[in-house]
């Protein structure tokens, strides 16, 4: 099993404290968050699907129930909410069976809260396959058969990402993607109209809901990143001027638990 070493025991609680403190401060006053184009474009994509009278597709990735997929589900729930207002259905293919009841419940809640429970079709959430390329083939087939006008890819993706995003590109669907899988980001950039990169993915629920708690968390994340940048700068200075201290720093950061 992997266990924390001294550096992790200091830094993780410190970063957690900064994030929680920022959330506490955010509850007291309103905060500004910059525009994220990929997320702003969601309404435009839903509007286009509505004008064309075609369904939308939302893929929550290959992951099971983890924080990445939970964030993806939150974003797709927002897409479904906008789609529900315009009576545009969202098809959600899933690759993990644990996600099926969660996704169905979430979408049902969205339709009920929008006052249109009759529009919810449980078969719009489909378990296709838990095998990577079988899932990719099935998603590509769904895009081609249903002629989806807007495709949303949020979550954990691997090599299969390019297969269905390229198919979506070929049929002219407007595509928005976001993933923490850094290796897949270039493929999404080549095939999608909008891509949210890096920690913008985790900022999505805050950006879309504007909840003070979530906005505070984003501010906390930025403060933590500033701390890390400071650490990198200190590391550069130490490595350049006092290399004698490098072994000491390395043993602290990489030492056993």
């Amino acid at each position: 099993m992997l266990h924390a070493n001294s550096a992790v025991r200091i830094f993780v609680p410190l970063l957690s404290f900064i994030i929680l403190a920022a959330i506490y401060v955010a509850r007291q006053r309103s905060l500004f968050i910059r525009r994220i184009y990929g997320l702003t474009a969601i309404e435009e994509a839903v509007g286009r699907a509505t004008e064309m009278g075609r369904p939308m597709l939302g893929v929550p990735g290959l992951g099971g129930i983890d924080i990445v997929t939970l964030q993806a589900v939150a974003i797709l729930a927002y897409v479904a909410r906008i789609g529900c207002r315009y009576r545009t259905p969202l098809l959600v293919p899933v690759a993990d069976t644990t996600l099926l009841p969660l996704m169905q419940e979430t979408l049902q809640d969205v339709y009920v809260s929008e006052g249109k429970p009759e529009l919810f079709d449980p078969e719009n959430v489909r378990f296709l396959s838990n095998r990577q390329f079988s899932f990719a083939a099935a998603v590509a087939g769904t895009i081609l058969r249903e002629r989806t006008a807007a495709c949303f890819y949020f979550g954990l993706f691997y090599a299969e990402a390019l297969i269905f995003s390229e198919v979506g590109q070929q049929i002219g669907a407007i595509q928005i993607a976001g993933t923490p899988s850094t290796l897949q980001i270039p493929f999404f950039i080549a095939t999608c109209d909008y891509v949210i990169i890096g920690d913008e993915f985790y900022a999505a629920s805050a950006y879309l809901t504007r909840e003070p708690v979530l906005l505070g968390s984003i501010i906390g994340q930025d403060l933590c990143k500033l701390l890390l940048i400071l650490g990198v700068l200190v590391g550069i200075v130490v490595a350049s001027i006092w290399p004698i201290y490098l072994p000491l720093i390395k043993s602290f950061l990489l030492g056993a638990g």
Partner: protein
Amino acid sequence: MGLWSGFFHPVHSKTLLALYIAGVLFACLVLFLVLQLIPVPARRHVIRFVTFLGGLFYALEFFLPVAKSGPHADQNVLTPYTTAFGNISQAIVGFTIGLGVINLFQVHLGRLVKRSSDAMFSLAFFLSFLAMFLVSLWHHSHPNALSRALNHILFDGLLQSLDATMFSLIAFYIASAAYRAFRVRSLEATILLVTALVVMLGQIPVGTYLTHTFPAPLRVENIRNWILTQANVAVIRAIAFGLDIGALAMSLRIWLGLERGNYFD
């Protein structure tokens, strides 16, 4: 602690195992009924509390100091229970596979009944499902030469080959995606094109041959190496820092029940 250790150990007596399974099923039924009976806001509190307990267990297991040596080296007081908690998760996942199969049947049976234009694909699904299910069941319960051969044809001969076919399609998709990305339309696209050209030339013998008379820092394989190990790694690490901090923040919000919006309310 002794009672808990015994509780999580494998049971070998068949009677005791049957009792355990009956007890677990009864406990699950009671838990299900209780969750259904209590009002939705209270149910959310229960879920938040269970989430907090689960998170607390794994956080403590990760942060508590471990023994440096001895029979329990690299373990702390909670480490032995991680397998049991992992097994609980696996059991829950096992239940949901049934849900997935039911969902597939609902979607495809509906298409067959309606005789829609895609009905033949649904028929193919049922035939494939039945063939794989029956052969696999036969092979695992009464293995013989015929069942082994059928299983080999269906799994290695068909499924694995179809997977490999889909994977190989990526090469063509990369080509068409790269063509679009590398078209010289802006300064950024031009930089991307030149960088990709250098990296690709540095990867092949022809590229190395073209610049072998140049001073070492100007040889294409060294420039490629610098791009991949210096410029590229710096950017990837910067993104990774942001992602990891974001994951920490999201984990904290879910663990402490602070997440808001959509299904978290």
